[in-house]
């Protein structure tokens, strides 16, 4: 089994990336490829579902920092959801929760796209 698998779907005009595994220097290229693939297809509305993401290190954060400007320049967004505690801690500690909107669940993120309650950045990790 691969150490990182990314499954992509389209829902409500957003590209949803399901990350399964861990993101570090060994696997970051696979992660970057999946994000870049969305941008190449002009999908600037991206939700990363972290339900099966064990952890992310600085190289993974670098991928997100590398694309956020292009996404914002194209009126898009990069949301994250379903973070476990370890993943949330790294985003929160570095202040990335001010740059990337974080939702407890994918449903909440989708709901915010549809004009529902905006509960972004309320996540505290799923433990």
């Amino acid at each position: 089994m691969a150490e990182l698998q990314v499954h992509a779907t389209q829902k409500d005009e957003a590209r949803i990336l399901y990350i399964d595994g861990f993101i570090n220097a060994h696997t970051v290229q696979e992660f970057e490829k999946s994000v870049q693939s969305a941008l190449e297809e002009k999908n600037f509305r991206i939700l990363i579902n972290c339900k099966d993401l064990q952890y992310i290190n600085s190289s993974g954060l670098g991928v997100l920092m590398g694309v956020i400007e292009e996404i914002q320049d194209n009126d898009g967004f990069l949301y994250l959801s379903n973070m476990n505690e370890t993943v949330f801690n790294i985003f929160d500690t570095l202040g990335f929760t001010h740059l990337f909107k974080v939702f407890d669940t994918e449903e909440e993120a989708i709901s915010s796209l549809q004009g529902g309650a905006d509960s972004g950045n309320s996540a505290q990790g799923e433990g």
Partner: protein
Amino acid sequence: MTDQQKGNIMVTFPSQNQYVHMITMVASNAASIAGFDKSVAGKVAIATDEAVTNVIKHAYGGKPNHTITFKVEITPESLVIKIIHTGAALSKKSIVLPDMKKYIEERRRGGLGLLIMNQFMDEVDYQEGKQHCCQMTKYRKSTKTEQK
């Protein structure tokens, strides 16, 4: 504190990124065995990942034919992680940790590894010698406020 919460672990592995996850998991499990909660074990894992990745990338310049020794010491007071190598030493004087407010404002990329290690561990030290060592310590009575 019981006798089961003391112990030493040592692993020597090649300077290749494919081994980093295994070491990260050893560090996380050692933290759990030492009695730290899941949140702290996750932080120890990430700090270890960053430290080992730095050694592979910077100390050994990405060359895969070197070795790294990873040690964990579980003591009554703390968990001590040591990453030992013979590559280029990191001078403590050369370390400048990024200001995250500016970092985010300027959309910078890279250079967060040392900051993460400092944020997630209580102490990070770099020792130069015949072999160089990055030593990271997490105390049972942490000097840092733990989040959930």
